[in-house]
């Protein structure tokens, strides 16, 4: 008899992960409440450190910006370093209550990605981004920042318009 073609295969395995974590007994199990509580506290504690951590990155961005000004021949490398840091920053601001950091870092990341334009205007634009992010952290502007947040966003957009033309 010729083999019929297989249209679909179902793989059904024994639940080894459950055996490994809840034992062979098969009784009800859950993640310990104490562990959940302890982990949530650890997470909150780390979140509190977030502004300090970002401040450190902003200082590094500032260094790279200084290099762009002092040694224009290094600009390609500087922009690459800035691009990398911006990527790090944009992924997490929102997680710790600072979506403006994410938005500004995203903008910085966007215009330093794959560009070969390292003119003075671009360097100024990097500076505008750094200043905006610093203002967010210095003022602990969390969430959308309300009026202050809007002002910061508007002034960064003005800078983008000014230096992009």
């Amino acid at each position, binding site marked *: 008899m010729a083999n*019929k*073609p*297989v*249209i*679909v*295969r*179902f*793989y*059904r*395995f*024994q*639940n080894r*992960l*459950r055996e*490994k*974590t*809840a*034992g062979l007994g098969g*009784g*009800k*199990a*859950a*993640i*310990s409440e104490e*562990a*959940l509580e*302890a*982990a*949530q506290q*650890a*997470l909150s504690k*780390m979140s509190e450190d*977030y502004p300090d*951590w970002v401040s450190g990155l902003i200082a590094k961005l500032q260094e790279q910006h200084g290099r762009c000004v002092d040694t224009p021949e290094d600009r390609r490398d500087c922009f690459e370093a800035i691009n990398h840091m911006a*990527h*790090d920053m944009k*992924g*997490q601001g*929102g*997680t*710790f*209550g600072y979506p403006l950091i994410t938005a500004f870092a995203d903008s910085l990341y966007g215009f330093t990605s794959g560009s070969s334009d390292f003119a003075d205007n671009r360097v100024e634009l990097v500076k505008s981004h750094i200043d905006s992010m610093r203002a967010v952290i210095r003022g602990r502007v969390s969430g959308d920042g309300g009026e202050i947040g809007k002002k910061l966003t508007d002034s960064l957009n003005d800078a983008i318009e000014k230096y992009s033309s």
Partner: protein
Amino acid sequence: MSDYDFDRLNVLLAEDSPFIRSLLINSLKVLGVGNVYALEHGGDAINFLQQVKNEPMKVGVQQIDIVISNWDMSPVDGMMFLRWVRRHKDSPDRFVPFVMITSYTEPERVLQAREMGVTEMLAKPFTIKNIGEKLTSIIERPRQFVHTKDYFGPDRRRQRVNISGPDRRVLNDKSEGVEVIRG
């Protein structure tokens, strides 16, 4: 009700942001996970899994139980990593539960990951409760794997619907062309 013991669990974590990486390692450790292997992006994670397959003694781990990966990473992002895990011949375990962390929660992005065979999606910003729910779902409600000509991954149907009346589905376990593999 007893507590899970995660002490023997081996979790592979691919996350490029140093801050989130240490945060996740820390959270998993406090939840009691015995071993967390953290890598910076999908490429490093693939290399690590190849080592697990080829030289388990050298890396000191026989099997990864759960993969947790960020989506947006470079050079190898979470989707490319997931594709490798599910489809590549060198993948040590094509059935391993895969949790994708993402701030992209638009329906089409979620769908894209689902079609690639993701097990769970963890949206940023996340809480410990969210992580706990994903782990519980993986342990308590594993889904059968489905392999068709254009899909390989956990069954995309999560719900078990009780059918009242005759079963009119085109294929069931006894149909021609259906093969059930148990293990």
